[in-house]
């Protein structure tokens, strides 16, 4: 992760009006949710971030907007990573889907939807992937109690 490349990218994003900082060796950019698809397309075509590493979300229960959706991108040529964050509210946790840009987005968005309830606009296959059909709720939200089991097979007395 070369500092020079990160600095250049940070200046470019700041020039575009996007808050960007370098924290612990990674460039972090904050984007508004509706602009995410266009920003990701630009990252892929102009800045050479050809691999989507990860899509996840963070739940900040006391805060409004409640969720931070976080993407990590990697450039296989420059060997740098960038973290893109966007904030969405609990009432409307919708972000654009990146399935048209990256094939790896499909499964990762399904997982994020499973765990946090984030809806990905443009991904029409948001079936449960880590959870199962019939599971109610989103376990990684802070208000889901850890021990609440929803058994598919009724328990027997041993």
């Amino acid at each position, binding site marked *: 992760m070369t500092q020079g490349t990160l600095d250049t990218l940070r200046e470019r994003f700041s020039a575009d009006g996007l808050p960007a900082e370098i924290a612990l060796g990674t460039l972090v950019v904050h984007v508004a949710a509706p602009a995410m698809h266009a920003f990701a397309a630009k990252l892929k075509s102009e800045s050479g971030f050809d691999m989507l590493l990860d899509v996840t979300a963070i739940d900040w229960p006391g805060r409004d907007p409640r969720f931070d959706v976080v993407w990590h991108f990697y450039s296989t040529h420059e060997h740098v990573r960038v973290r893109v964050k966007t904030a969405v509210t609990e009432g409307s946790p919708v972000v654009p889907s990146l399935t048209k840009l990256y094939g790896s987005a499909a499964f990762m968005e399904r997982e994020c939807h499973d765990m946090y309830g984030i809806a990905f606009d443009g991904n029409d296959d948001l079936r449960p992937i880590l959870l199962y059909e019939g599971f109610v709720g989103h376990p990684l939200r802070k208000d889901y109690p850890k021990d609440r089991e929803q*058994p598919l097979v009724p328990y*027997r007395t041993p």
Partner: protein
Amino acid sequence: MMARPATIPIARADARSGAFEYVTTKKDELIGWARKFSLFPYPFVTACCAMEFMAVSSSPYDTDRFGAALPRFSPRQADLLMVVGTVTHKQAPILRKVYEQMCEPKWVMAFGVCATSGGFYQNYAAVQGIDRVIPVDVYIPGCPPRPEMVIDGIMQLQQKIATASHPILTERF
């Protein structure tokens, strides 16, 4: 001189002779011996315990010495369901289905703490012990258990199988 008894006593229906019991005990021992040394495990493998399952099936720990080497991946052909690793709620219906598809006699071994009691995954996802879903005959704790523990578990199961009684013949007589 004593008079001869008027009638000769007939053997009653519930009277047992020692010779008969000898035969039925030996029959039970024979069946137990045959079953315990010809276990066909169905390795219901899910998680990390699979590594120790592979190790216990290979040298130097070898389950082949106990006759329990050949895994049968069809429940119809297996008699020992080894549940190796964590069973989650998503997996539980499949575990029930596989158990139901096995024919009698069948035994269940809970391999590892996750199968025994849920392990340290006390949350929404893991079944807290497979005995909440199917009946279990032997529990092998460990995370994952050392191969020696697995062999000990197999030997205890063999003990259980060998000392089981098989009430055929004895009831009908």
